[in-house]
């Protein structure tokens, strides 16, 4: 009898499991069919968008969606990095403080509102209004007055010359919004009809997915893709599995440990491209002994960057400069600057600086996978020259506050340039006016400030690039950072999805995408 009871229970359990598996099998067949439905893309993102309005957001997940719905006046050529017109037709500079921008005609927002100078004025004035609290208002900080002499001309008057105006106007957060849509509702939550882009916002289930659909009337020609779903998948291993099985079509920003797995999958194409991000070791110049150049030089000499880069599975590149190879302002002569790995020289410099037996210091960083891996490496490298490093990992929000308030001694950071211009790196990080905000180094040097302002204000682009070159040499020689490695951007795409081009800032457009 007992035997009977046991075997009955086990068989009931087995039947339940088999039924569930069969049931599941049927279901997955259905979903397989629907995923192979033509011209639909599922893109996996680690985080959800913060919002859908370019005016109110400043994160990469939101930008990925914003780039499909809205457009900027200018854009960066994905191949050359050159700034070229998008919604604009062209521009003129009658004087360094005036930008006359001619707009393309016969373009309409998705809600039917005509795209014209009024729409540009409305968008920029809203960004500049302190009540809007736009996180990227600083992109237009120099703008004093906006005029619209006719329907297709916008004149931007600046207080001081603003040499990076075109770069700023190519920034996703300066995308033009439909005044009608913006006034009618909150486009940060529902962006239906709010842009001029190739896709129209359809649905947002916060925390789960965002869907955009084809804009049949797109001025640049209707895209081939019917809909794109931006699916939130916080776990990278899951996202990788989804691309492997075809549950998702593409993924960007793949960490080194998952790269091989995707490369070995015959159905997936992996793109690796030299990027414009930099991962660095920074110093607080207000804390001793980091104000001492010899100490900073010793630290750079003590870190074997090549050894660390060899662990990145090809996802890091050695370049000695703070402004990396993919940024405007880079010049290959920088590779003869910087300080090579040489422990003996490091020790000698430390002794010259007055620290023959080393010192104690704290290294602060946000506890992400990237920095959790770098920090112990730096600790071990500096131990060789008797610098006793205490690791101080923090959650991201705490790290931002800590670093901004000048409490960190040494810190780890990463910087990715959306615009691809070296100025976008130098001004926030090293301009004294940004101490207490993005200048975590609390670097305050009038000579450096003057040079940074020149890289920002010079209208003649060749001259501006020359100032960036000079700044790169000066800041690299002065070891404002130890550039640990320059990034490589990655993208994994199912092989039947074509026409998506990855850019060096890690971004991409779906305009020419199609499925075979």
């Amino acid at each position, binding site marked *: *009898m*007992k035997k009977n009871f046991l075997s009955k229970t086990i068989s009931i359990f087995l039947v339940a499991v088999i039924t569930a598996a069969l049931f599941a099998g049927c279901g997955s067949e259905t979903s397989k069919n629907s995923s192979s439905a033509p011209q639909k893309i599922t893109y996996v993102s680690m985080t959800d968008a913060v919002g859908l309005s370019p005016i109110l957001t*400043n994160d990469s997940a939101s930008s990925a969606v914003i780039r499909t719905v809205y457009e900027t006046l200018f854009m960066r050529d994905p191949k050359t990095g050159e700034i070229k017109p998008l919604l604009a037709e062209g521009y003129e500079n009658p004087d360094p403080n005036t930008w006359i921008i001619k707009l393309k005609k016969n373009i309409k927002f998705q809600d039917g509102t005509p795209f014209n100078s009024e729409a540009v004025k409305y968008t920029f004035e809203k960004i500049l209004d302190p009540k809007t*609290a736009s996180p990227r208002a600083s992109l237009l900080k120099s703008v004093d007055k906006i005029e619209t002499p006719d329907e297709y001309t916008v004149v931007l008057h600046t207080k001081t010359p603003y040499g990076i105006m075109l770069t700023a106007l190519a920034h996703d957060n300066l995308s033009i919004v439909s005044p009608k849509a913006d006034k009618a509702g909150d486009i940060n939550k529902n962006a239906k009809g709010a842009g001029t882009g190739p896709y129209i916002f359809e649905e947002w*289930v916060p925390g789960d997915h965002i869907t955009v659909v084809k804009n049949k009337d797109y001025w640049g020609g209707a895209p081939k893709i019917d809909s794109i779903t931006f699916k939130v998948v916080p776990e990278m291993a*899951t996202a990788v599995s989804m691309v492997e099985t075809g549950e998702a079509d593409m993924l960007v920003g793949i960490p080194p440990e998952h790269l091989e797995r995707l490369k070995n999958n015959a159905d997936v194409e992996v793109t690796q491209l030299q990027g414009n991000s930099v991962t660095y070791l920074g110093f607080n110049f207000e804390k001793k002994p980091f104000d001492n150049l010899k100490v900073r030089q010793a630290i750079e000499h003590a870190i074997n960057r090549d050894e660390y880069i060899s662990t990145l599975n090809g996802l890091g590149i050695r370049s000695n400069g703070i402004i990396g190879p993919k940024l405007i302002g880079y010049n290959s002569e920088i590779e003869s600057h910087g300080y090579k790995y040489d422990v003996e020289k490091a020790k000698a410099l430390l002794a010259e600086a007055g620290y023959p037996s080393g010192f104690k210091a704290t290294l602060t960083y946000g506890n992400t996978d990237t920095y959790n891996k770098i920090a112990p490496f730096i600790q071990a490298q500096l131990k060789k020259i008797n610098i006793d490093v205490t690791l101080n990992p923090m959650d991201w*929000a705490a790290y931002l506050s800590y670093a901004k308030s000048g409490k960190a001694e040494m810190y780890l950071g990463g910087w990715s340039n959306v615009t691809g211009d070296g100025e976008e790196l130098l001004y926030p990080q090293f301009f004294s006016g940004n101490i207490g905000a*993005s200048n975590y180094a609390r670097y305050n040097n009038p000579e450096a400030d003057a040079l940074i302002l020149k890289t920002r204000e010079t209208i003649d682009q060749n001259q501006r690039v020359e100032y960036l070159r000079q700044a790169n040499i000066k800041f690299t020689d002065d070891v404002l950072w130890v550039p640990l490695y320059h990034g490589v951007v990655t993208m994994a795409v199912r092989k039947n999805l074509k026409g998506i081009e990855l850019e060096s800032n890690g971004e991409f457009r779906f305009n020419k995408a199609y499925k075979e």
Partner: protein
Amino acid sequence: MVKYIFKRLIQLIPVLIGVSIAVFLMIYLIPGNAAEIIAGPTATKEEIQNITVKLGLDKPAYIQYLKYMSGVLKGDLGYSFQTGQAVSKAIAVRYVNTLSLAIFSALISIILGVTTGIIAAAKRNSWFDRLCMGISTFGISAPSFWIGLLLIVVFGVKLKLLPISGFNGKIWTADGFIHLLMPAITLGFGSSAMISRMTRSSLLEIIHQDYIQTARAKGVKEKIVILKHALKNALIPIITIVGINFGGLLGGAVVVESVFAINGIGRLMVQAISARDFPMIQGSVLMVAFTFVIINLIVDILYAAIDPRIQYN
């Protein structure tokens, strides 16, 4: 009994107020604030200041708290600092998902845990008993994210039997069911291990008592002895552990929600804490605390239903 339930529900109020003050103080005292996160690392001082003013974070702490609580008393949980979405709406969507996951995994864990626990006790020291206890030790010690990723690789990537991610919030549909199967097994496995061990030990204690021997001596079938005479008396500790586990499933589902990309309340809380999104943290913690209290109440009522010796006045 009705009076007792009413009394317990009244007790909820100070509990929730206490929770809200604790959460507020924690968020206020830990470093980092929402405006800095929204502004991002590139932000200038003006940008951070404008966002701080817009969110009302420039006001004194007690005013921020009182303003928030006055809204809560009117049934308004406020708006997310980060996304501007209504907190109540954001929680509602995710709560359904988490609750579905918790109920499904609780069912799996109860069925699996109680069944194996009973058989293991009835067949003490047999190969089945040893196998069950071995598996349950593994179940308790194996981290859920590892089990989840293992299931994904086997059933999702290799066998292509089950979908890897997402859940539509409708467990009663075939699509909802298959999407929730792997996450529920992942979450329910550890919990079933605990229930299995508890059922076994609780039953073993009972089946050596005199009244069980008497029942057997009277010739009652073993199945009846175990399931009717013994199990009913062994149920109290089992229900306790099921109740505690269910609460844990609600709050602790965050890892499984992340692994299987389920839009649940655990993940919402983690995101909100990372962004120092006070209204969202407060709303979701209050909701989870509320659920915990209600589950405890249900467990207490179940005690009385099972054991007539327990009475509430």
